[in-house]
């Protein structure tokens, strides 16, 4: 698969024997009847989906439909929002992530996250990348870990001579790749990315997309994006969410359709999906 072509529509290889659901690829996550509440407001209702190993899964949909909320269930970041409550099951390799004996800190060491706005720490570039391994008590040569992670994120050549400088002096695109390097440094299994390119220019966006393609053989990636072309370019599967008004007039997010990206963009089953991907959403 080419990593430098960016067509308007996807050039996703056919999944010959894959009939979504009966696939050979193992599930990393399975969501069953997931409901997320913020205080009394049910922000996400009845989501069921599977994230396959070593695939890029994209969440698309209008803003406020609960994409970030669902994403934060995968590494229990919703725990940090006191009013958030999660119902239903979130299984990671079969383990219920919300079981009482599960340590959210251990979950987050395996399931890394990259945020919408690049959020480097006010520390040196080196210390940013070394942060996760240090708090995680990782053994090994820190210089090697940092170099490997920065190389992986395609940032090494740009920063190798200024590792001691503050990360806050980098460009936005570099900062976001640093955040990816920082996430990779703890050797995670999954990378969750919440609109990682929304604050970046097209060139920086292209580099992040290339990077995702390069690392997808080693990581399972879930990316939230409101850029449909981006979903089409990078992802294997796409979940389309939408928000509808509930009986109280609050917006409630629902999963409308989840399928191979090529199907979602060329032959969606639901007319709301079709309206959205063809730009006729209203």
């Amino acid at each position: 698969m080419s990593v430098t072509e960016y067509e308007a529509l996807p050039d996703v290889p056919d999944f010959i024997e894959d009939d979504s659901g009966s696939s050979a690829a193992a599930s990393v996550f399975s969501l069953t009847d997931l409901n997320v509440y913020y205080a009394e407001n049910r922000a996400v209702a009845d989501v069921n989906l599977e994230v396959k190993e070593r695939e890029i899964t994209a969440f698309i949909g209008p803003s406020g439909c609960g994409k970030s909320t669902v994403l934060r269930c995968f590494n229990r970041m919703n725990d940090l929002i006191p009013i958030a409550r999660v119902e239903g099951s979130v299984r990671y390799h079969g383990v219920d992530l919300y079981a009482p004996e599960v340590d959210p800190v251990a979950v987050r060491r395996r399931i890394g996250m990259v945020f919408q706005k690049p959020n480097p720490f006010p520390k040196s570039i080196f210390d940013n990348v070394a942060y996760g391994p240090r708090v995680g008590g990782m053994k090994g040569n820190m210089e090697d870990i940092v170099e490997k992670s920065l190389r992986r994120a395609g940032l090494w050549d740009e920063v190798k001579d200024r590792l001691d400088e503050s990360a806050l002096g980098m460009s936005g695109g570099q900062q976001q790749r640093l955040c990816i390097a920082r996430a990779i440094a703890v050797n995670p299994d999954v990378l969750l990315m919440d609109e990682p390119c929304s604050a970046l220019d097209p060139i920086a966006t292209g580099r992040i997309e290339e990077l995702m393609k390069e690392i997808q053989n080693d990581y399972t990636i879930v990316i939230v994006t409101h850029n449909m072309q981006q979903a089409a370019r990078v992802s294997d599967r796409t979940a389309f969410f939408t928000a509808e008004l509930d009986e109280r007039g609050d917006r409630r997010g629902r999963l409308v359709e989840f399928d191979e990206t090529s199907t979602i963009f060329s032959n969606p089953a639901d007319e709301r999906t079709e309206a959205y991907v063809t730009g006729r959403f209203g």
Partner: protein
Amino acid sequence: MRGDVFDPGSLQKQPGADRPGQVFFGLISLAVLAAFVMVGAVLWDVVQGSWDISTSRMWGFLTTSFVSNPDAAGVAQGIRGSLIIAGIVILTFPIGIGAAIYLEEYATDNWSTRLIQVTVRNLAGVPSIVYGLLGLAVFVQTLKGLTGGDSVISGALTLAILVLPIVIITSAEAIRAVPGSYRDGAYGLGATQWETIRTQVLPAALPGILTGTVLSIARALGEAAPLLVVGAAGFYTTGNNDFLEQMRGAFTALPMNIATFTKEPAAIWRGHAAAASLVLLVLVFLINLVAIIGRARIAKRLGR
């Protein structure tokens, strides 16, 4: 499309277009000037009043105790007391900073937490003499066995409680101002809550916390009223008491010295009051300086 023909003159500066802005600028300039004049007047008064002592026997003034002969009297005891007070107050800062961490990072946001926050805010506004009465009841009388009664320990602890709300409020505000994205980043990498606080929140909040603590020390060093209530002396005599005995015995501090000098009927003592004020100002200034240097070093480390 505006539809009208472009008039080059419309881009020219119009006289008086920004009149309100200019008036505002004038007013704030005046305010700054007034502040400078007032500070200058205080400094002038102090420097001029202490001129005789500063130029003739400053060292002696700093190193001798209070005696009834004006030509020999000094403030060594006051300096000593004020330094001990500053030291003890600094030792209690972790309590205030810890309370702020608890309120901001651990306590859930419910009515009892809010009640505590409101109470702390109100305590910051309680007149200092009231803290003196508290100190008298608690440290001088109830805990006499530990503090030795009206000792420098009692005085310092009273002042520590006086500034505790200030330390809590300023620290809490500094902690609250730490961007949530630092916390998210740390948690997202598998840091525990304590690791997040220790490695992200506290370093980022430290400059603000330092500012609050310095203001608190300055406040504690300047207070005379609570010390008066807990029984500080204007001066005292010590025999050959060792350090521990002195900590639990009679004490004084620079504001007490200033008050004592001012109450003396003979005019010559006005100079002593001014000189003691100068010493106090320099002491606070030095503490400020240490904090400013500390702030700058932290800011540099954080890359800002």
